[in-house]
């Protein structure tokens, strides 16, 4: 794949792993070089469309966070996809790519809202779905499915949803769905 060759030639050691699976290409890079690689992808390799930014919580392993960027070539009609991943420690901030793709602004706000990962140099680092003052990050693995109590007077409140046998929490694992699926676990 021409894209991969170009990236390897340009960045070399910063790309720690490349995965090809059924025509989908994923590169795993270092957190420090991620922004430069993404910029190169946009400017030199014509990945003009950022499909999505998402994040993973690998609770119990270090580093805890994993960022995932989904890129696509839209302008030249080739429809080629590239996935860029990198790991992030809990005390680190991710580099914002809102200056490269406008759409990253809201994607990164969603990651911040749901997972609590902050972005450096983001133009508008606020929550996007939950309200300002909501004290939790609901998609973290240590957050119960039923939710937690909170109260912001005159803004919103939350309460635990009744879950028989709960709270149900998913677990990060590379083994099968049986281990991964939400089960009654306590994280307090």
């Amino acid at each position: 794949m021409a894209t991969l060759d170009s990236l390897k030639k340009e960045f070399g050691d910063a790309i720690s792993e490349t995965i090809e699976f059924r025509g989908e290409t994923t590169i795993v890079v270092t957190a420090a070089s991620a922004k430069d690689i993404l910029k190169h992808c946009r400017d030199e390799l014509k990945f003009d469309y950022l499909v999505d930014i998402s994040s993973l919580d690998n609770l119990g392993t270090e580093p805890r966070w994993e960022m995932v960027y989904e890129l696509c070539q839209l302008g030249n009609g080739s429809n080629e996809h590239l996935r860029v991943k990198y790991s992030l420690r809990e005390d680190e901030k991710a580099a914002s790519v809102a200056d490269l793709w406008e759409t990253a602004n809201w994607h990164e706000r969603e990651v911040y809202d749901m997972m609590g990962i902050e972005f450096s140099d983001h133009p508008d680092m606020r929550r996007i779905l939950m309200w300002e003052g909501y004290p939790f990050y609901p998609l973290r693995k240590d957050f119960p499915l039923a939710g937690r109590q909170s109260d912001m007077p005159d803004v919103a409140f939350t309460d635990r949803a009744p879950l028989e046998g709960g709270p149900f929490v998913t677990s990060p694992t590379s083994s099968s769905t049986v281990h991964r699926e939400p089960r009654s676990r306590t994280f307090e």
Partner: protein
Amino acid sequence: MQAGADVSSRMSSTTQHAAYDTKVEGNIIFTQVDTAINWMRKNSLWPMPMGLACCAIELMGSASSRFDISRFGAEVMRFSPRQSDVMIVAGTVTYKMALAVKRVWDQMPEPKWCIAMGACASSGGMYRSYAVLQGIDNLIPVDVYISGCPPRPEAVLEGLMKLQKKIELEQSAVAQFKRGEGGLIEG
């Protein structure tokens, strides 16, 4: 024209009012104040459509010609709470929306009623989640719960008729009289 005249002459000669005859009784109907008030209220329930999810689509369906909610006098969907009588909470009430729903409810003048339409508004439905209020009755009093996900328009109409039945039994004037505010009845 000829046919029309025939029909009207036949009507006047055959129509008979056994219980009520204006010629005998004049323009007077004997009833109770509560019965009259309830009759007027139940047949002109103006809904406040609190459409929050897919239930709102079924609510629109029940307002349109196939199901025609205006047969029950409730077709005047008011988007101002100050002109509404019944709030139909149609859809998933998230915590972010919850206090806004409460506020609109508080702005509705008495007497007012509430219909929780569908599983989400009644109990949170399938959303056993951090983000969803587990039933609007946590915040405002609900008169009628309609099951379904979403309920069909027939179910909405059934719920409305249930509410009408409930209104029929209200004794607002009697209650006022018992509280000693009954200028209307005491004369």
